[in-house]
């Protein structure tokens, strides 16, 4: 058997990680003759944190494993797992990082700067509505650290202050009652909740969507909801900043139903990770962190915004 460069993701149920897998597979195809292969795995569900830790253990116990890249859904738990397992092979993080104080446990981080991503969404919203207004944040799984980090980035950018967990007029922005909404990565739930929030708050000014589920998971109800508001969105009277550029999202941006999209580059993560791991095995110095870029799309840039 080939030596394995293992990628452990948070959960298989998410198309985002599938893009990482695509990158991983592309690397395999291009390096068919290599003595290494990229091996992608993870728990069935993103919410199964303990399951991910168990998989990490399993993988570290396997003789074929020569390096591992982890996307931790519970950073502390993975850190703890790594401490106990005390692996002999190089470990890096991918897509999501360990906490700062645990950074010695991994060699490097490859992925998006989630805080920056949220901050970019915040900037688009702030640019469209400099005077502030009422906003609702749509989040995913309540325990998902990367999403929480994005939300923090957005809040910090909107207010110019650090570390607020709910906005009550700082920088002109107020989060309405019932927000943030946790959609548990369910597109339909996300749109349904957004519909309810809009019903209850007709004077809402903005949505900050920290994970793209409502757009790519339920594009049609999303369109139905915002088509009547397309004109307002065009005039920046209503603002929607959303994460990701998956599936139908770019088309939605083209239709002018979202102010701006800020997307990650998961494919790039999956494609680059094997090379970074091989560098680590070879003992080369690798910068820490290695950020993959962000794709930012507005109505006017949709045709060119995605990095190929």
């Amino acid at each position, binding site marked *: 058997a080939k030596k394995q460069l293992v990628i452990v993701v948070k959960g298989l149920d998410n198309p985002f990680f599938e893009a990482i897998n695509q990158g991983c597979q592309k690397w395999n195809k291009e390096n068919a003759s290599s003595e290494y292969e990229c091996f992608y795995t993870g728990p069935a569900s993103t919410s199964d944190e303990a399951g991910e830790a168990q998989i990490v253990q399993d993988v570290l116990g396997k003789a074929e494993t020569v390096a591992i890249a982890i996307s931790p859904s519970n950073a502390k738990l993975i850190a703890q797992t790594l401490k106990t397992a005390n692996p002999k092979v190089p470990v890096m993080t991918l897509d999501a990082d360990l906490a700062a104080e645990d950074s010695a446990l991994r060699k490097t981080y490859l992925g998006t700067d989630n805080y920056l991503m949220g901050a970019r969404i915040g900037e688009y919203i702030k640019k469209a509505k400099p005077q502030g207004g009422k906003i609702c944040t749509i989040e995913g799984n309540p325990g998902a650290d990367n999403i929480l980090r994005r939300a923090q980035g957005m809040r910090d950018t909107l207010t110019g202050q650090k570390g607020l967990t709910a906005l009550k007029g700082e920088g002109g922005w107020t989060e309405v009652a019932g927000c943030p909404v946790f959609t548990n990565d369910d597109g339909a739930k996300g749109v349904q909740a957004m519909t309810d929030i809009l019903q209850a708050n007709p004077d809402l000014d903005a949505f900050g969507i920290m994970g793209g589920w409502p757009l790519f998971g339920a*594009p049609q109800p999303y369109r139905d909801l915002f088509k009547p508001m397309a004109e307002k969105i065009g005039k920046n009277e209503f603002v929607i900043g959303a994460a990701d550029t998956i599936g139908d999202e770019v088309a939605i941006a083209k239709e002018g139903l979202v102010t701006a999209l800020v997307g990650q580059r998961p494919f790039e993560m999956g494609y680059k990770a094997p090379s970074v791991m091989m560098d680590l095995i070879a003992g080369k110095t690798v910068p820490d962190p290695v950020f993959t870029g962000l794709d930012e799309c507005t109505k006017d840039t949709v045709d060119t915004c995605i990095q190929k």
Partner: protein
Amino acid sequence: MAITLDQTIAQRQRNWFSSVFASQTFWVLVAVIIACIFLSFATSSFATPTNLYNITRNVTFVAIIALGMTLVIITGGIDLSVGSVLCLCSMVLAVTMHAGYGIGTGIAASIGTALVVGAFNGLLIAYLGFPPFVVTLGMLSIARSLAMVASNNTVVFQFGPDHDKLLALGGGAWLGIANPVLYMAVLALLTGFVLRWTRFGRYVFAIGGNEHAATLTGVPVRKIKVAVYMISALSAGVAGIIQTGWLGAVTTNIGAGMELQVIAAAVIGGANLAGGVGTAFGAIVGAALIEVIRNSLGLLGINAFWQGTFIGGAIVLAVLFDRLRNLRQSD
């Protein structure tokens, strides 16, 4: 004065009216109505046409599956695979249409998949005597995994030449009522009819009441059980098709965790997991209750952290009416 044998035989313990009052479905319906009235006064946005349109549409997916689930529960079984089957059927539809086939082929493939899955569950349960919980839990895992395989775990959002037809099917409306609501109404009437007026329905109840007795009296218990699991999977498949038309995209996590919601809808509506009891109307009422609660979270602006408490509390409260009536009566 003397009562004849004829008169005694013609008696019955409860008339139609008192049976209605004795049913959990009725009291949950009362709870739903009270909640709606409360929300109409407490928020200005509840009783608006758009909100009602949305609520009725949102309720349908859980409700349609709850109809099939009700049959399973009446026989004393359980089907945990419905959420995954919904996902698999949606994915089969999406992938087929994406590959350029028409909507007819897509729907046929999807329905076919549902029936095969249901038959698999049913055969293991009825003929090999597997516990329904184990079989359908296994299928929960298998169906979603197959959906991943079918789609390569990607988002499918382009449905080939009949793209628009599919969207119209699930997203359209007729006389101001969302299409899914119409489908749900038709399916509920059909289920209600089958349960009350057909021999099949009678057998479903008999199996749940006393499976052994049903076997002894010549009820084709095994065939009926297979049929019931096929119907359950079918209802999940139908809900999947409609939901795909509404959402306009399929991911491999749609329907995740839906099984508990669906079973809850059926049970809240009066079905008894021990078997023998349940109605189509109850399934709809139970699903409606869950959706009204969900809808109210946003409208009332409940704090995100407390939303779960609110949902859970409301589910328990809804059944409280019925329990209180029972307690009062048992004295």
